[in-house]
C-alpha cells in the first residue's frame, strides 16, 4: 500500500514538474515573441522587472494615453536636473541658433536620413500638456510642442522586424531606448517647444524626446541620433540604456 502511494506520488510529482517546466519554457517563448521581456531581465531583480514590464504591456493598449491636463494646471516652477552641455560642439551649435544641428536616423530603416530642425518642423506639429515626473519624487506639468516620433519613423520607413528604438543625446553619457509600441505611441514626441516657447536650453534644446508614459529619465534631452534595431546586443552593455549601468531600470512606466 505504502509502495503504491509512493509510486503514485512519484508519477504525479514527475508529471507536475514536467508540466511546470514545459509551461515556464512556453511562457518564456510567448513572452519573448510578444515583447514582454525587458533587457534587464537577468539578475536577482530581473523577475520583478519582467513581471512589471509584461503586466503593463498587457494592461496598456497601444493607445492608452498618459494623463493630460488643462492649461491652468501648467506648473509655474519647472525644475531641471542638470544643465545644458558645456562642450564646444554644443556651444557652437547654440551660437548658430542650431541651424547646423542635425538629427540622424539610421539602423533598420529603408531611408537613413539626417534632419535639420527646419526639416523636422515640416511634419505636423502637436501639443500635449503632460507630467514630467522625476524618479527622485518631484514633478511638473508643461505644455510640450513637437512632432510625433511615429510620423518621422514612418517617413524614413521603419522595418517590420524593428523591436527597439535607441536615442542618443549630444551629451554622450545619456542615451536610452524604448520598444516599438512606445516609439509609435501618439504622445511620444520629438519636442522642440515648451509652454509656448522654444524649449529652454536646460530642458533639452533643440530636441527632447518625450515619453510621457514613463518616468522623466526616459525623456532624454539634446537628442541628435536615433537608431532602430532588432537587438540590444553590442550597444553599450546590452541593457538598452545608460540607466541600468547606473542602477536604474530600463522600463520606467513603474
Amino acid at each position, binding site marked *: 500500500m505504502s509502495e503504491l502511494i509512493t509510486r503514485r506520488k512519484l508519477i504525479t510529482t514527475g508529471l507536475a514538474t514536467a508540466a511546470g517546466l514545459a509551461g515556464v519554457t512556453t511562457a518564456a517563448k510567448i513572452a519573448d515573441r510578444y515583447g514582454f521581456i525587458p533587457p534587464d531581465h537577468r539578475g*536577482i*531583480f530581473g*523577475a*520583478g*522587472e519582467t*513581471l*512589471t514590464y509584461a503586466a*503593463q504591456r498587457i*494592461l*496598456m*493598449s497601444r493607445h*492608452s*494615453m*498618459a*494623463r493630460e*491636463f488643462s492649461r491652468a*494646471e501648467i*506648473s*509655474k*516652477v*519647472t*525644475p*531641471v*536636473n542638470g544643465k545644458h552641455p558645456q562642450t564646444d560642439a554644443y556651444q557652437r551649435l547654440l551660437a548658430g541658433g542650431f541651424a547646423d544641428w542635425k538629427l540622424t536616423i539610421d539602423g533598420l530603416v529603408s531611408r537613413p536620413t539626417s534632419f535639420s530642425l527646419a526639416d523636422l518642423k515640416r511634419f505636423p506639429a502637436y501639443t500635449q500638456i503632460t*507630467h514630467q*515626473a*522625476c*524618479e*527622485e*519624487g*518631484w*514633478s*511638473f*506639468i508643461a505644455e510640450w510642442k513637437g512632432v510625433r516620433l511615429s510620423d518621422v519613423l514612418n517617413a524614413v520607413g521603419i522595418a517590420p522586424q524593428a523591436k527597439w528604438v535607441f536615442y542618443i543625446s549630444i551629451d554622450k553619457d545619456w542615451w536610452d531606448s524604448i520598444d516599438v509600441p512606445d516609439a509609435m505611441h501618439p504622445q511620444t514626441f520629438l519636442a522642440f517647444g515648451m509652454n509656448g516657447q522654444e524649449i529652454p536650453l536646460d530642458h533639452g534644446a533643440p530636441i527632447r524626446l518625450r515619453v*510621457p*508614459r*514613463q*518616468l522623466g529619465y526616459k525623456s532624454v534631452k539634446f537628442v541628435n541620433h536615433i537608431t532602430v534595431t532588432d537587438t540590444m546586443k553590442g550597444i553599450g552593455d546590452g541593457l538598452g540604456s545608460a*540607466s541600468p549601468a*547606473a*542602477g*536604474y*531600470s530600463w522600463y520606467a*512606466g*513603474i
Partner: protein
Amino acid sequence: MAESIQLPALAVPATEGASDAPRHSAIVRVTHWITAVSAFALLLSGIVILLAHPRFYWGETGGASGSRVGPSLFDLPLPFVLENPIRGPGRYLHFFSAWICVLTGLFYVLYGFFSGHFKWNLLPAKKDLSWRLISDHLRLRHSPAEDAHSYNVVQRLSYLVVIFVLFPLLLWTGLGMSPAVTSVFPWLATTFGGQQSARTIHFFLTIAVIAFVLVHLFMVYRAGFLGRVWTMITGRTPR
C-alpha cells in the same frame, strides 16, 4: 473517565490546542513570513527612494531642484536632496518586493475567504464588539494567555484593517504614481487629488504600517516572544 471531567476548565483548551489542529495553518504561517520579509524590504528600499527627495506635496505636482523651490506641504528634517548611489538598486528592490508582497497577499486573501480563515479567525464575534471589551484590551487589562488559541477582538480588528485597508491603499497609491498605469486607470491618481497626493498618502500609510508592526512586536514580546514566534513557525503552541 470521571477524573477527566474533574480537570480545571482552563486546562482543556490548552492541551487541545497543543495536540490537535495547528494554532496557525501552514498557509497562514508561510504567507506571514513572506509578507514580513517583503514588507521589510519594501520599507528599506522605500527609505532609500525617499532620501532622494524628502519633501511632500499635495495635488498633481511639486518641484524643487537646486535653488528653485516650489511650495511643499512639509519637509522631513533631512538634507534637501540627498544623492545616494544606491537609489537605482533601491528602486529595483522596491518593485521586486512589491510583486512578492502583492502575489503573496492575493494568495492569502483568496485562501482566507475560501478556507473560512477570515470568517472564523479574524471576523470579531458580535458579542465582542463592545467598547468596554475593546478599551479593556487597549489598556492591556487582559492576560496574553487568553489569546494563545484565538485572536482577541482588538487583534482581529487591527489585522483586518492592515489586510483590507492599509495594504490595498499602499498598492493603490503606489500605482497612482505610475504614469503607465494611470494612462489606463487615471482614477488611481485623481481620486486622491493627484500624483503627489498619492505619494504623500503612500508615505503616511507606511507610517501606519510601521506603527502597527511596532505594536504587534510589543504584544508578541508581552505574550512571550520566543513562544509566539515558535508558534508562527511551527504552528504548535508550546506547553
